[in-house]
């Protein structure tokens, strides 16, 4: 039995570095494209399911960024789901728990929800098709007080013959959770035991946005988000195509995401370094779908600093987002910086004074003042 395991669509998520529209206005251009990319990823995984001949798609939690997303987000999600040709099971996770505000119980969702979509908002066994069961461990609140997956597994009898059972759960597993005292953490031992005695045949998890499998047990896996959501993620943008049965399971990773949230480091000390950086930025593929965090360090003159700023400014429009962290760049104006201005008289004295302050005491205000003087002097 083949199905597609995915999770953490986080529909309705925005990223600050992609720019903001002003209050009351539409979001920025990159932001809008990113939102569309997330929907495209959903549609893509629907196509994967169809192409792979999957029996169903299970989304293990956090379909929506929040239960309070707007009707536009809900409506577009429903439209994306409409393109699916296989049954889709949506599990409420920690972002969209099955509490009184559950988004999938809202009228706007119910009105547009395609018939092949099932919301696993009550815990227990759901029969997707004869011989195929999905055990749902949905979040009912944002702060569960027990291991929901463990609770479900303990209530199960071994699956009858001829029935393939998949558990759909959400949350951090104990080997990954940094908080040992979290009562809701998922115990992998319990999962292993359930897999061993045949109560379930695959444990599909959500919450971690990078694809991850339990070491030595591929049947306990996080699919990761189908499209990147953060610079911290190691391997996002995938769905898992799972062939599961009483005898074991094989898992394949299929990429559907197209965006990249990248981090780059650069050392700039010379004009050559600057040129290299310029070339490097120019060489990045698909910059319009890349949010780059560039951490620059080094020691430069004022002219070099101006050039660095100019390079960043020149490339920024191409990228979805280009964040240059120049906090580690030390700017030391040299004599040439001052002479370059072609100033005489007291203006030259003032420029030298500012340059000295910037160089000797790392006075950024003096540096800014000197930069401004450059601008004003050139404008003359």
């Amino acid at each position, binding site marked *: 039995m083949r199905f597609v395991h995915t999770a953490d669509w986080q529909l309705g998520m925005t990223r600050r570095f992609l720019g903001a529209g002003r209050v009351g206005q539409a979001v920025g251009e990159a932001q809008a494209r990113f939102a569309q990319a997330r929907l495209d990823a959903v549609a893509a995984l629907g196509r994967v399911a169809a192409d792979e001949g999957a029996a169903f798609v299970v989304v293990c939690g956090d379909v929506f960024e929040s239960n309070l997303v*707007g009707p536009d987000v809900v409506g577009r999600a429903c439209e994306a789901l409409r393109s699916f040709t296989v049954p889709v099971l949506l599990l409420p996770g920690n972002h969209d728990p099955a509490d009184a505000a559950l988004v999938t119980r809202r*009228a706007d969702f119910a009105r547009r929800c395609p018939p092949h979509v099932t919301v696993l908002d009550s815990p227990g066994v759901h029969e997707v098709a004869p011989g195929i069961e999905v055990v749902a461990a949905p979040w009912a609140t944002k702060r569960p007080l027990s291991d929901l997956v463990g609770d479900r597994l303990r209530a199960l009898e071994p699956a009858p013959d001829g029935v393939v059972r998949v558990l759909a759960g959400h949350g951090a597993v104990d080997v990954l959770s940094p908080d040992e005292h979290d009562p809701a953490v998922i115990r992998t031992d319990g999962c292993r035991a359930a897999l061993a005695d045949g109560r379930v045949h695959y444990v599909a998890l959500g919450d971690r946005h990078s694809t991850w499998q339990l070491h030595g047990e591929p049947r306990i896996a996080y699919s990761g988000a189908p499209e990147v959501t953060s610079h911290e993620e190691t391997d996002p943008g995938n769905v898992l195509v799972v062939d599961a049965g009483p005898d074991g399971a094989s898992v394949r990773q299929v990429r559907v995401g197209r965006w990249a949230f990248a981090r780059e480091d650069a050392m700039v000390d010379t004009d050559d370094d600057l040129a290299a950086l310029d070339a490097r930025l120019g060489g990045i593929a698909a910059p319009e779908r890349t949010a780059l965090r560039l951490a620059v360090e080094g020691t430069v003159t004022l002219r070099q600093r101006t050039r660095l700023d100019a390079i960043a400014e020149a490339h920024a429009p191409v990228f979805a987002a280009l964040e240059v962290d120049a906090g580690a760049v030390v700017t030391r104006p040299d004599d040439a910086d001052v002479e370059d201005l072609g100033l*005489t008289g007291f203006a030259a004295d003032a420029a030298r004074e500012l340059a000295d302050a910037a160089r000797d005491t790392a006075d950024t205000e003096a540096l800014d003042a000197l930069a401004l*003087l450059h601008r004003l002097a050139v404008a003359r």
Partner: protein
Amino acid sequence: MRLLRIRLRDFRGVHDREVRLAESGVTVLEGENEVGKTSTVAALDLLVDFRDDSKASPVRAAAPAGRDAGPEVEAEFVSGPYHVVYRKRWLRRRLTELTVLTPSPEQLAGREAHDRLLAILDETMDRSLWLALRVEQHTPLGQADLGGHDALSRALDLAAAGAGGEGAGPAADAAAEGLVERALAEVRRYHGGHGRPVGPLREAGERTTAAREEVDRAAAAVTEVERDVDLRAELDREAAGLAEERRAQNDRVRELEDRWSALQARRQEVATSAERAEHARERAGRATERQDARAALVTATTSARDAAARAEQVLAGLETRDGARRDDLAERRAAADAARAASDTATAAARAAADALTTARDRAELAVLRGRLRRAGTAEEARREAARAAGGPCADATAVERLEGLDREVVAAEAELTAGAATVEVTGLAAGATVTVDGTEHAVAEGATTTLPVADPVTVGVPGAVRVTVRPGRDGAAARRRVADARAARDELCSTLGVADPAAARAALRAAGEAAARVRELAAVVERELDGRTLDDVRAAIAALVERLPAEADPGPATPPRRRGARRAAPDEPGLFEEAGLLDDPADDPEPEDLEPLRLEAVRTLDAADAAHRAAREAENAWRRTDEAAVAAGTEVAGARTALAVARSEADRRSAELADARAEQPDDALAAAATEALARARRHEADHEQRAAALDADDPTTVEALYTTAKRAVEALVARTTDVDRRRAEVTGRLQVAGGEGRHDRLAAARAELAAAERQHAAVTRRAAAATRLHDTLARRRDEVRRAYVAPFRREVERLARIVFGPSLTLEVDPSLRIVTRTLNGVTVPFDALSTGAKEQLGLCARLAVAALVDAEDGVPVLIDDALGHSDPGRLERLAAVFGAAAAGSSHQVVVLTCTPARYRGIGAARTVTLDPSYPPPEAVPAPPTEPAGSPESAGPTGDPVPDAWSEVG
């Protein structure tokens, strides 16, 4: 720049005039008002500023009035290496011509010429300094704005360097000045006055504030939903708990209700038995009441009969006493009448006795009065007599003493005479001799000698024998005269007094004194008898008494006193004094009647009358009392009769009532019924008490309370359930609404916006800080530099100004080359507080100082249009020296325009040009070249004729 020549044609009021200026030093242009001095300066500006096709208002204003000609200006000047002639005509037949003579000849026209000229000026001349060094007409000659001029800066730079300054190149400061301005403009983009944020800085701040508020609002909206979600979960739990509680409570209510119903039935029975007992008690009570009523009726009947009998007895007694009282009344009346009659008699007797007594008293009184009257009359007469006796001439004791005095004088005089006179001694010689002395015989005893004085002639004789007369001699005459005078005075007084000699006078005086005493005595008698009354009063009293006395009673007692009185009253009767003692004796009055019996009789009769009257009154009172008692007793009898009638009627009625009642139900039957009813009532009460005690033992109150409480608890649970359901519905409704609002999206957008706003704000703040820092640094550096080159400027100004103000003058100059204060003789005054004249003089000195400082190549002319109107002649003279001092060692050009040439006489001008009016020639006749003597001997570089009057004094 140096101006060499200016020519105006058809320019305002000037038809055609050329003015030449001294190349260096002072040129004075003098002329009357409206001759066109100021136009000359204005023409220069026009020449540079406006192209020939301009129709700007200054250009149009330059057109000559009423003539169809375009204004034309031509100037020749040297600026830097260039020596040019520039000509321009506007409005009509427009024209621009530029001729560059050196360094390389050029000839340009039109737009090209204009642009080229501007380029030359920009290259070689500091135009702002040119404007600053000008003093326009009618504008106060104040401080020139000297800061930031290239030429001046260069000059000061040189001066500072020459004075040992650093000379680091402040010549570029003028350019740097522009940088300061731009930096300030940059600061102004962010900060208004007092550091108030404006423009992008303010917008960024506002954007951040707005974004933060929006985040707060959006977060609150999300939090609200989260709270509602929690609340909804809480309410769900509560609803489930309530349902459970209600089930348990309902069971309890049902159980209690059963117990309560059973008790309720028994309580009904107890109530019924209580009613029954009450009913029996009431019937017993009624029977007893009937019995009591019968007994009361019997008692009332008996007492009514008794009352009737008593009333009868009372009436009989009263009637008996009434008869006796009537008899007594008649008796008392008779007695009273008798007593009254007796009283009347006694009263009459008393009155008669009183009358008799009164009459007797009057009569006695009359007699007394008559006696007194008589005695008083007698005494009065005697008194009058005595008074006459007392009033004689010798009664005057003084006169008598005088007489005696006179007598003594006589004796004294005689003694003196005798003593001094001869004496005659007669001595008897024989016994029995007799001698006569002055006719008087004296026996002269034997041997006796009698000495006789011979004061007067003394005749001594022996009778019958001889007569010897002895006469005193002449020497005794005076004494004799004195004796005679004394005798005469004594005798005269004696005769006056009516006496013979002083002894008689003494006797008479004594008699008068006795008479006076008698008068006083008698007056006292009269006084006593009349007892303070006058005689007339006494007589009137007597007359009143006589009147009153009855005539028949009068004669008897009245006659004898009258008779006796008449006898006594004889006035001439002798022995007045002897009878005086009788006057006090009333025994001569008639014997008074004996009044005592009469008085006693009157008293006795009066007492009797009083007694009789009292008796009569008592008797009457007794009668009246008896009468009143009789009347009262009659009333009492009538009352008793009424009472008897009432009592009899009552007794009859009661008897009839009792008889009726007994006929209806005998007394013993009543008693039996009452006893029976009471017994039944007791039975019923006992039954009720038993039942009630049994019910209380089962504690129905507690059961009822429990039942009620349980029911109330159920109601409360229902109410709470309803409330919870309602709140759940509310929360659910709110959640449904909130769900469709996209609150998460809004919060995300708001946070993104806040982040962006904060980034922007930080960036703008940083830019603003950079601008402020830059400007501060530049300005500080500039001020430092300026301070360095202020010194040479100040030195030069002070040098010139000391010529005007004296050697003690010092000035303070700020970095922008403005004079801040002037100190003169130790007194420091701010520039603005100086007098207009002093400001004008200092302003001129500053300009001339600049002109002197600036290199001749760089320099511009100092142009002064009719200034120094505020300076006094002494100062003017000194200012003239200033012009000279400024010109010394320098080659700058100064042009002074004035309408009062005297003001500038002392300057020692290099050239003085007198401007005369330049009118257009008459229309018809072509203008003949009327050239005054001493006219153009020098031709300008253009070679143009100089058709109009101008003169030149060098």
